[in-house]
C-alpha cells in the first residue's frame, strides 16, 4: 500500500466554456473560479470526438477512449435485449480512477458521475447519476431505484437532499427568468420547466456533496454536475447578443438563464471550497465547451445526439493545490490526461496502456512518473461490480425520457427490437468516430463499412468517406461519395414533401446545412492534388457556412499549396474572426507571413499557436525558421530543439541545427549530434532538376545521362507520385539518380532524402518562346504575352521561396545559355557539384546537338 498523499477533489461542470466564463469573471460575476485560477493553473482541455458526455466522462475517469472503456453512447440494451436503458457502470470494461485508488487503500466519494448506476461497492460512498432524477410529482412517494446509493444503508439519509423541481420557488427562479414574476403563461412553458428541473438537479447534487464532504471520511472525491450543459441546451440560443432569427419575446424571457446558471455554479463552488483545507488538490473541469457566440448553430440536426453540434471542442481545466503552479495558464490538456495526471499527483504509477499523458506542466517540480504496464493486470480490492445488477426499469425509463426531452435520443418506437438494433449501430458509430479521433483508422473503417452497408444512413457513409480520405484510400472514398450523393438526393426529395413549421427558425433554415458532400468532394480533390477542382467546391460550402472555421482553413491550405499566400492570409483571418483561438489558423497565418518574408509577424502568430497547443512540432519548426531568418540564432536553436524533442525524426529541424551550430554559433559538438542523426536516418541522395514549367529539363536530363549520370525515366510512376504528393516510395527508386520535379512540387518533397538541386536558370526571353510553342499559343510579333509572363514569374518565385526555406540545401544554379556554350568551367563545376566523373566528350556532343 502506498503512503497516502493529500486529498483530491474533482468537480465536473459539463459543457463549461471559457468563452462564457471569462467575460463573467471580468464583470466580477464569478469570483470563486477566479480565485481558484489565481491559486492554481488553468487552461483549455481538448475534448474527443464525438463530444458526447457519458463517453467523455468515462474517458476522464479512466484515461481510455470508448473502444477500450466500453461506454459508447447514452443508452444500452437491457440485459434481455428487448429494450433500452441508460448506460450503466456494469458496461465499463476498465477500472475507473476510484477503483485504482480503492485497491491502493484510498477512500472515495463519487457523486452523480456519468454513468455511475448501479453504484459500485467502493470503499466510500457512490451515489449514482439516477439519484437526482424526479420520477414522481411533489408529495408523492419518490423512491430511489435500486443501486442508486452505495452503501445501501445510506439510502434514506441521501433521500433528504433531493430537491424536487416543484420545490423551486419563484424567488429562486427570478434570476434565471425575471419575466416569471408577471407572466403566468411563461410559468407553464416547457423551457421554463426544463430550467427549473435542471436547477433542482444541481441543488440536489450539491447538497448531497456538501453533506458527504462534511460528514464522511474521504481521500478522493468526484462530483459531476450536468446543469450547465442542460441550461445551455435549453437557453444558449437566447444568450445575448440576440441574433435576428430569435424571436424578441423568447430572447427577453430566457436571455438570463445561462448567466444565472454559471453564477449559481460559482456560488456552489464557493461553498464547496469552504469545506476543504489548503492541502486538498482541486480539479475543476468540463468535458467539452458550448458555442456561445456567432458559432452557435441555427440548425440542430434531426438525428440522435444532434444537439451535440452545439458543443465546442475545448472545455475548461483548473487545478490548484500543493505542488501545483500558481496563476499559470497551461496548454495541451486533453480529457484523456486527467486520470494519468491525478494518479501521478497521488504518487501512484500511470498505466502505460492509458491513452492520456501526465500534465507535467501543471506542477512546480515535476519528476518522471512511475509506470506500470496496465492497472488492469494488477489484482486488488477495486470496488468494481462482481456481476451485472438488475435495476428498476421504470426509473431507468424515466431517465431515458429525460434524454429524449433533451433531444439526445429519439423517442422509442413501437418496434423495440428494431430500436435496439438502431441503438447498437449508433453506439458503434460513436465508437468508430472516437477511434478515428484517436488515429485508429483501420478498425474504425471496418465498423463504418459494416453499419453503412446495413443501414445506408448518410452520416455513417460520410464518416466512412472521411476515414478513407484520411487513410489516403481515394478510390474507396470516391465510391462512397457517389453512393452518398444518390442517398442525399433521395432524402432531399423526401424532405421537400414534408410539411415544415414556418415559425420555427431551428427547423427551417436551410442555409446552415453542413453540405458535407461538397465539403468531402472538395477535400478529396485537395488530397488528390487537384486544387483547381477543390477550390470552387469549398468556396461554395463557405458561402453557405461563413462561420465554419475548418472550411476557411481548408481553402487557405489550397491557396498555400498554390503559393497564393495573400489569398491564404485572407482565409486564415476569416477563420480567426470566427474563432480567435484556432491553433491551425494562427499557425497557417504565421506560415503565410513567413513565406512573405514578414518574419516578426510570423513569430507572433507561431507563438500564439504554441500557446494554444504546445505539442505540434511543426509549429516549433517554423518558429525556428522565422527566428533563423531574423538571425536570432539562439532562439532559433531553442525552437528547433523543441521540435526534435516532440518529433525526434524531424530531419529538417536537424538540418537547421547543423547549419546554425556549425556556421553561426560555432558549436561543433552540438552540430555533430544532429549530423550523427542525419547520417543514420537520411536514406540517400537524389539529384533534383527543376526550373519553371516547360523549361528545357528533358534536354538537361539527356545531357546528364550522356555524361554518365543515372537518370530515372518513369513517366507512369511519376504521374502516380505526383498524385500522392510525393509521399510514397517512388522517390526511393530515384536514389542516386537524377529526376525532374516541377517547381510547384518542390515543397512536397519528403525530408528523409538529401537533395542535390540543379536549378535550370533561363531568362524570360528564353522561356517565353518555348512556353508559347508548347501551349500552342500564337503571339503577335513584338508583343509580350502578359499571362505567360506572370505565370513564369510566379514559378520562379516558388523556386526561390523553396530554396530559401531549406536548411543546408545545396543548389547549383545552371545558366542554360552558358551551359549550351560548353563552358568548361561550368562543366567542371557541375561534375564537382554532382561528385561524379562526367564523360565530358559525350556531354559536349550532346550540348552541340541541343544547341542546334
Amino acid at each position: 500500500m502506498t503512503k497516502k498523499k493529500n486529498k483530491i477533489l474533482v468537480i465536473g461542470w459539463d459543457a463549461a466554456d471559457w468563452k462564457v466564463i471569462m467575460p463573467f469573471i471580468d464583470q466580477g460575476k464569478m469570483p470563486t473560479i477566479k480565485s481558484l485560477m489565481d491559486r492554481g493553473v488553468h487552461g483549455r482541455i481538448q475534448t474527443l470526438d464525438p463530444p458526447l458526455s457519458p463517453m467523455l466522462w468515462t474517458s476522464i475517469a479512466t484515461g481510455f477512449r470508448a473502444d477500450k472503456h466500453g461506454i459508447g453512447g447514452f443508452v444500452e440494451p437491457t440485459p434481455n435485449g428487448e429494450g433500452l436503458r441508460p448506460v450503466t457502470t456494469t458496461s465499463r470494461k476498465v477500472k475507473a480512477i476510484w477503483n485504482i485508488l480503492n485497491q491502493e487503500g484510498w477512500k472515495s466519494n463519487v457523486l452523480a458521475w456519468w454513468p455511475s448506476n448501479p453504484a459500485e461497492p467502493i470503499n466510500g460512498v457512490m451515489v449514482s447519476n439516477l439519484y437526482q432524477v424526479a420520477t414522481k410529482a411533489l408529495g408523492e412517494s419518490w423512491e430511489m431505484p435500486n443501486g442508486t446509493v452505495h452503501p445501501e444503508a445510506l439510502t434514506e439519509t441521501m433521500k433528504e437532499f433531493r430537491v424536487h423541481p416543484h420545490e423551486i420557488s419563484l424567488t429562486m427562479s427570478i434570476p434565471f427568468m425575471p419575466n416569471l414574476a408577471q407572466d403566468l403563461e411563461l410559468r407553464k412553458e416547457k423551457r421554463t420547466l426544463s430550467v427549473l428541473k435542471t436547477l433542482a438537479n444541481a441543488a440536489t447534487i450539491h447538497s448531497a456533496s456538501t453533506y458527504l464532504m462534511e460528514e464522511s471520511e474521504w481521500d478522493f472525491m468526484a462530483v459531476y454536475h450536468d446543469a450547465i450543459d442542460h441550461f445551455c441546451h435549453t437557453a444558449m440560443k437566447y444568450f445575448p447578443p440576440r441574433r435576428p432569427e430569435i424571436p424578441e419575446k423568447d430572447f427577453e424571457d430566457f436571455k438570463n438563464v445561462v448567466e444565472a446558471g454559471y453564477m449559481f455554479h460559482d456560488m456552489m463552488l464557493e461553498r464547496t471550497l469552504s469545506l476543504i483545507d489548503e492541502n486538498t488538490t482541486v480539479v475543476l473541469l468540463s468535458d467539452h465547451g458550448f458555442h456561445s457566440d456567432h458559432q452557435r448553430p441555427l440548425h440542430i440536426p434531426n438525428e440522435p445526439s444532434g444537439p451535440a453540434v452545439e458543443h465546442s471542442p475545448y472545455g475548461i481545466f483548473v487545478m490548484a493545490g500543493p505542488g501545483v503552479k500558481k496563476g499559470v495558464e497551461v496548454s495541451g490538456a486533453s480529457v484523456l490526461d486527467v486520470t494519468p495526471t491525478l494518479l501521478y499527483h497521488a504518487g501512484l504509477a500511470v498505466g502505460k496502456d492509458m491513452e492520456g499523458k501526465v500534465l507535467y506542466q501543471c506542477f512546480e517540480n515535476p519528476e518522471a512518473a512511475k509506470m506500470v504496464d496496465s492497472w488492469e493486470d494488477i489484482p486488488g480490492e477495486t470496488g468494481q461490480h462482481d456481476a451485472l445488477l438488475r435495476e428498476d426499469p421504470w426509473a431507468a425509463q424515466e431517465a431515458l425520457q429525460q434524454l429524449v426531452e433533451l433531444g439526445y435520443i429519439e423517442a422509442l418506437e413501437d418496434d423495440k427490437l428494431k430500436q435496439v438494433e438502431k441503438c447498437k449501430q449508433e453506439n458503434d458509430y460513436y465508437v468508430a468516430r472516437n477511434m478515428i479521433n484517436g488515429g485508429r483508422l483501420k478498425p474504425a473503417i471496418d465498423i463504418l463499412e459494416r453499419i453503412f452497408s446495413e443501414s445506408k444512413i448518410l452520416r455513417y457513409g460520410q464518416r466512412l468517406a472521411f476515414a478513407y480520405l484520411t487513410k489516403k484510400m481515394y478510390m474507396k472514398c470516391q465510391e462512397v461519395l457517389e453512393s452518398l450523393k444518390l442517398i442525399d438526393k433521395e432524402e432531399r426529395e423526401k424532405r421537400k414533401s414534408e410539411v415544415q413549421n414556418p415559425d420555427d427558425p431551428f427547423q427551417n433554415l436551410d442555409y446552415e446545412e453542413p453540405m458535407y458532400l461538397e465539403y468531402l468532394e472538395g477535400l478529396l480533390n485537395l488530397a488528390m492534388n487537384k486544387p483547381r477542382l477543390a477550390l470552387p467546391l469549398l468556396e461554395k460550402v463557405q458561402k453557405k457556412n461563413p462561420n465554419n472555421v475548418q472550411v476557411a482553413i481548408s481553402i487557405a491550405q489550397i491557396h498555400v499549396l498554390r503559393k497564393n499566400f495573400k489569398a491564404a492570409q485572407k482565409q486564415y483571418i476569416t477563420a480567426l474572426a470566427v474563432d480567435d483561438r484556432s491553433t491551425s489558423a494562427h499557425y497557417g497565418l504565421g506560415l503565410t507571413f513567413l513565406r512573405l518574408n514578414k518574419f516578426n509577424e510570423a513569430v507572433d502568430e507561431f507563438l500564439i499557436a504554441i500557446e494554444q497547443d504546445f505539442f505540434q512540432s511543426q509549429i516549433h519548426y517554423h518558429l525556428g525558421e522565422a527566428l533563423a531568418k531574423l538571425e536570432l540564432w539562439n532562439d532559433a536553436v531553442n525552437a528547433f530543439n523543441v521540435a526534435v524533442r516532440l518529433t525526434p525524426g524531424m530531419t529538417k529541424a536537424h538540418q537547421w541545427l547543423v547549419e546554425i551550430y556549425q556556421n553561426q554559433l560555432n558549436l561543433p559538438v552540438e552540430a555533430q549530434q544532429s549530423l550523427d542523426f542525419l547520417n543514420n536516418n537520411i536514406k540517400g541522395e537524389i539529384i533534383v532538376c527543376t526550373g519553371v514549367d516547360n523549361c528545357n529539363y528533358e534536354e538537361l536530363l539527356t545531357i546528364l545521362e550522356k555524361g554518365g549520370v543515372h537518370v530515372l525515366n518513369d513517366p507512369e510512376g511519376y504521374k502516380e507520385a505526383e498524385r500522392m504528393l510525393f509521399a510514397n516510395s517512388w522517390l526511393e527508386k530515384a536514389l542516386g539518380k537524377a529526376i525532374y520535379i516541377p517547381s510547384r512540387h518542390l515543397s512536397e518533397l519528403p525530408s528523409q532524402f538529401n537533395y542535390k538541386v540543379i536549378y535550370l536558370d533561363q531568362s524570360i526571353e528564353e522561356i517565353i518562346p518555348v512556353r508559347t510553342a508548347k501551349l500552342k499559343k500564337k503571339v503577335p510579333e513584338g508583343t509580350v504575352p502578359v499571362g505567360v509572363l506572370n505565370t513564369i514569374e510566379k514559378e520562379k518565385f516558388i523556386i526561390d521561396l523553396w530554396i530559401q526555406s531549406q536548411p543546408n540545401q545545396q543548389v547549383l544554379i545552371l545558366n542554360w545559355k552558358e551551359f549550351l556554350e560548353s563552358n568548361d568551367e561550368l562543366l567542371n563545376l557541375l561534375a564537382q557539384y554532382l561528385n561524379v566523373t562526367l564523360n565530358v566528350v559525350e556531354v559536349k556532343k550532346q550540348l552541340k546537338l541541343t544547341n542546334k
Partner: protein
Amino acid sequence: MAKEYKITSQGSLGLLALGHIGLRKWREVVAQENKKIQQKKNDKKEK
C-alpha cells in the same frame, strides 16, 4: 461579526448554494410556515 439573514419560505439561490445546510434550514422554515397555515385553517374550521 457574523451577519444574520432572515430565511423566508421562498428560500433563495444563496440557500441552495449553501448545500445541505441551506436546504435543511429552508425546509424547516417551509415546514413551520405550512404548520402555521394548517393551524389557521384548523382554527377557522373550529370557529
